[in-house]
């Protein structure tokens, strides 16, 4: 649907607002114009009335009289001396003709009798229709019927503007001005205004369309970049021009999100590559040795040697896959057993177990154990201690002293494994808990490790609600401190 497009929706709103505003303004303007022009017509009518009432009085005697049948002549023009009635009449008729030339018609009538006394209307229009209209205007509205009062009112009838003048008396005089030219003018003006409004709306919409497009363009760019990233171009970044704008903030948030996802993806990729590397190396040995052994007839001793190599490699693969399985189970959030155990007992066991290894490597094991009760999986916690102590023995030269201490402080059970060995380089320190990270590839390869031991240690400690930290100084030794919530 086209109206799902934001740009089109903005355009539709824009159009609606513009069209309404233009319509309201232009209609108001048109009404104002009409009122102005009508006022001008009314003014003209009044002027005409003022200048020609005398003439009308000449033509229709008694119009200007105060009352029907009144003896006193009301017209102040009349009693002038030396007035020749014939002359006056002729002059009055001249005035009426002049009125006609100006487009003004006259109607003098007695509404009471329904009698037209004088009309300069064209023959095509029956005076009766006008008379009826005038009578309607004059009819008292909501007033008690009484003697007709003087009236001076203006109204529109058809294409005429009519000034209805009723001096005191039964007759009235209507001055009529044709307004069809005015109406035509106003219609033309209306069309012009309509066209102007239309053009204005069109221009406004075009500008709106362009502006909407411009302000939405970053959105298109963000979408294109995001699509590119989704399609596998993981290193791509969304171009941020203005980080303060709404779209800029969106871009920043998207960049952060994509960055985190990319980092996670890279970790997984690296982990997979490392895992496959670690498994492939012993697999290569197995394949090579078995194929070598089968190439030709061998002595039993050669077969045995080959089988022993193969077995060693297979055992190494087993150790790696066990470690990977343990990590995977930890990642999957395997619930931790809640047995009551004591880190001191576990450390004691570990030290006893590793006595032989320590002697072989001429390492000195020191236990400094105080009760440190915790809740957890005794087997897994025991392996944590074993792992850390074995690392301390194997990664250091002969003569190293490894101290295992446990204790409880501030409501936390702590386990410390310290050695006075060669230490870990500062640049390696942040990565030692990473999976497959090996500070010294050659050494740990010989010990059969795959670089998963410390990753498992960290995972196990954290699964027990604990934390592990390491400090090390090259040439001075390394200290691992794990702390758990005390039971």
């Amino acid at each position: 649907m086209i109206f799902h497009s934001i740009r089109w929706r903005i355009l539709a709103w824009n159009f609606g607002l513009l069209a309404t505003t233009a319509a309201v303004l232009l209609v108001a303007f048109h009404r104002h114009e009409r009122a102005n022009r009508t006022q001008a017509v009314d003014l003209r009518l009044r002027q005409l009335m003022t200048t020609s009432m005398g003439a009308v009085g000449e033509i229709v005697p008694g119009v200007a009289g105060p009352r029907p049948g009144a003896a006193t002549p009301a017209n102040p023009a009349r009693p002038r001396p030396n007035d020749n009635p014939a002359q006056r009449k002729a002059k009055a008729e001249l005035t009426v003709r002049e009125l006609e030339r100006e487009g003004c018609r006259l109607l003098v009538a007695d509404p009471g009798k329904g009698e037209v006394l004088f009309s300069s209307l064209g023959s095509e229009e029956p005076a009766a229709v006008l008379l009826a209209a005038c009578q309607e205007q004059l009819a008292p509205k909501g007033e008690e019927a009484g003697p007709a009062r003087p009236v001076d009112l203006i109204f529109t009838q058809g294409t005429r503007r009519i000034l209805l003048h009723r001096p005191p008396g039964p007759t009235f005089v209507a001055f009529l001005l044709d307004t069809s030219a005015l109406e035509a003018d106003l219609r033309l003006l209306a069309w012009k205004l309509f066209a102007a409004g239309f053009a204005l709306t069109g221009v406004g919409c075009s500008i709106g369309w362009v502006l909407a497009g411009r302000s939405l363009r970053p959105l298109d760019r963000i979408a294109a970049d995001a699509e590119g990233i989704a399609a596998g171009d993981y290193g791509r970044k969304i171009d941020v021009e203005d980080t303060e704008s709404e779209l800029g903030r969106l871009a920043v948030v998207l960049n952060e999100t994509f960055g985190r996802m990319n980092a996670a993806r890279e970790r997984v990729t690296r982990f997979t590559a490392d895992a496959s590397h670690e498994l492939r190396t012993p697999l290569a040995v197995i394949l090579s040795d078995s194929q070598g052994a089968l190439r030709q007839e061998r002595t039993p001793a050669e077969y045995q040697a080959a089988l022993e190599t193969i077995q060693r490699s297979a055992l190494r693969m087993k150790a790696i896959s066990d470690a990977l399985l343990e990590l995977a189970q930890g990642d999957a959030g395997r619930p931790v057993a809640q047995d009551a155990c004591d880190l001191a007992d576990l450390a004691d066991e570990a030290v006893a177990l590793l006595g032989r290894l320590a002697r072989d490597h001429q390492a000195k094991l020191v236990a400094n154990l105080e009760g440190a009760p915790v809740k957890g999986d005794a087997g897994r916690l025991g392996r944590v201690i074993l792992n850390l102590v074995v690392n301390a023995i194997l990664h250091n030269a002969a003569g190293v002293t490894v101290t295992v201490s446990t204790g409880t402080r501030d409501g936390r059970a702590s386990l410390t494994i310290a050695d006075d060995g060669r230490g870990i380089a500062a640049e390696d320190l942040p990565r030692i808990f990473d999976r497959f990270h090996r500070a010294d590839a050659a050494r740990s390869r010989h010990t059969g490790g795959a670089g998963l031991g410390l990753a498992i240690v960290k995972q196990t400690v954290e699964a027990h609600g604990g934390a592990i930290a390491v400090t090390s100084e090259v040439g001075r030794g390394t200290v691992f401190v794990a702390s758990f919530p005390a039971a």
Partner: protein
Amino acid sequence: MRILLVEDEAPLRASLLKVLREEGYAVDGAADGAEGLRKALECDYDAILLDHMMPAMDGREMLRRLRGVKRTPVMMLTARDSVEDRVVGLDLGADDYLVKPFVQQELLARLRALVRRNRPTAAVTIALGDVVIDTVARRVSRDGKEQAVTGREYTLLEYLAHRRGAVVTRAELYEHLFDENEDTLSNLLEVHVCNLRRKLGAELIKTRRGLGYVIEGVPAGKARP
């Protein structure tokens, strides 16, 4: 044919050394990049098999340093098989790439191809009169009948056949046919030449006294138009 195998994984190194020796190659082993580089610069190997991930100096670094000096054909062995790893390896100057774990037959075939590529001719059979050498099957026949030769004898014959028309010194033969553990003062070379003459005819390999050995003929790379 003398090969250098640089591999830090001791069991794999031992296994490959054994197989390559059984194939008749003279093979030296190196446990890390530093040792490998030293040996590669010391001796003109016919090919180097190079592990990628090694302590001390990894395969890439060793290759980069070697390429500054020598053009010895190198085949990378690696447990990493991402396209990126392969591209980087090849761009550093490796001639071939084999992903672990590999099948031995493939390793050996690729090694033969690698060595063949640096011969004047890439033909798989070499005819020397009535003697025909099949470099793929590593077999020798005389008058259409196959002659049993040991790996070392075959390597010696192929080496001389590739250099036919030119005298090959005993020192060069020792360098290419025997690995570092063998006693170059022994008369092993004479024994192998003697065996080949017995099997393929006394006239095939001629002795240039005081110089070395030669198989007469036109060198393959310099054949008349």
